[in-house]
């Protein structure tokens, strides 16, 4: 089960993920991210604070979306990962290609800078 809460403020979109990002829920997130990119979102912060678990299917969504962001000029920042989720990002080498911050404020600040 995954819940995606969305809030918008001007150019910035913040997504709050709650639950588990697995093979069942990953397509839902993929669809939502594609819609947001299509709507011309310029900056996006994804808050992982309430995400309990992520598997490869979820990582794949972020890898493909990171590419899409680079191509279409969307600025992306991820934040508030729980240690277990951060560990998965780290062993996958995603910490090298994605901007990850401990707090939402820092993530938003990085998008504004």
């Amino acid at each position, binding site marked *: 089960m995954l819940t995606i809460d969305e809030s918008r403020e001007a150019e910035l979109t913040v997504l709050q993920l709650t639950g588990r990002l697995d093979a069942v829920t990953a397509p839902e997130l993929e669809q939502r991210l594609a819609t947001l990119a299509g709507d011309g979102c310029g900056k996006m912060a994804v808050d992982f604070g309430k995400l309990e678990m992520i*598997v*490869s*299917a979820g*990582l*794949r969504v972020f*890898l*493909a979306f*990171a*590419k*899409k962001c680079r*191509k279409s000029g969307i600025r992306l920042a991820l934040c508030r990962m729980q240690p277990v989720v951060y560990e*998965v990002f780290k*062993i*996958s*080498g*995603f910490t*090298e*290609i994605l901007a990850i911050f401990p707090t939402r404020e820092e993530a938003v600040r990085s998008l504004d800078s």
Partner: protein
Amino acid sequence: MSSPLTASDSVSREVAIRNGMLLALLDTGIVTVALVAAKSSVLLADFFKTLLELVAVTLSWLAIRRINRGANQQFEYGMGKMEHLVSLFVGLLMTVCLLLIVLNALRNILHPTHIAGVGILISIADQIVYAFVNAFLWLKNRREARAASSPLMEAQSKLFLTRMIGNVFILLSLGLSMALKPYAWASYIDPAASLMIGASILMAAMGLFSTSVSNLLDRTLEESDQIVILRELARHFDDYESLHTIRSRRAGTEVFIDILLEFDPEKKVGEIQKAAADIRRSIEQAIRGSRVTIGLATSASA
């Protein structure tokens, strides 16, 4: 990753298997004569065991012969699957032989009789000769395996050791049955020993079934390997433009991975080919037994 077999490796493997087949054919002939000329459960079990070895080695020889002769630019689709189907067939044959051995042993336990006939002497001579041949091949292969650090040769040497132990076991069983003939209970040695040979066939059949069935059924790639694919794609993040799809499956020891990537249209064909080859190579090196295909996508494929 294992190094590919060269043409000369394949030919020498074919010759080695053919020699093994001829040896097994000769052994089957002798064991058949011994069985007909004697009344013994052990000899019946030995006959089935030898026959199964002959069938297995003949099928291996036919398969490798077909692969070597089939090098006519036509890709042999499904050869791997055929090999596993053949193993399943051998496994089924083993089960039938096992049933016959058990039924015969039970009959001889219920109605015990002493083993007799000239076939016993033929079999004793056969076991002595083959015990020496297998001991020689075991030592030779073990020496070569140690010199070359080859797991294949190591497995081969263990096979000959197992065969030698089998020969000694049958020899002991026949020898004890003959030597202890004056005792009534000695008539149970023969069926009991045949049941032990049956147990060894059962273990081999179970191993074949589990390996072949697992190899014939495709299943999802383990999560750890899926993470490895993503890690390698992240490592090559700047080499491609978009990630479209990743499809992967495991079939036995083989892993098939298809990745659809989009590259910068401004890049030259040579650059794209090199980038795709680098990604493919790094994943294949990271995941043992994997075969990676990088498909080229356009923005329209998204």
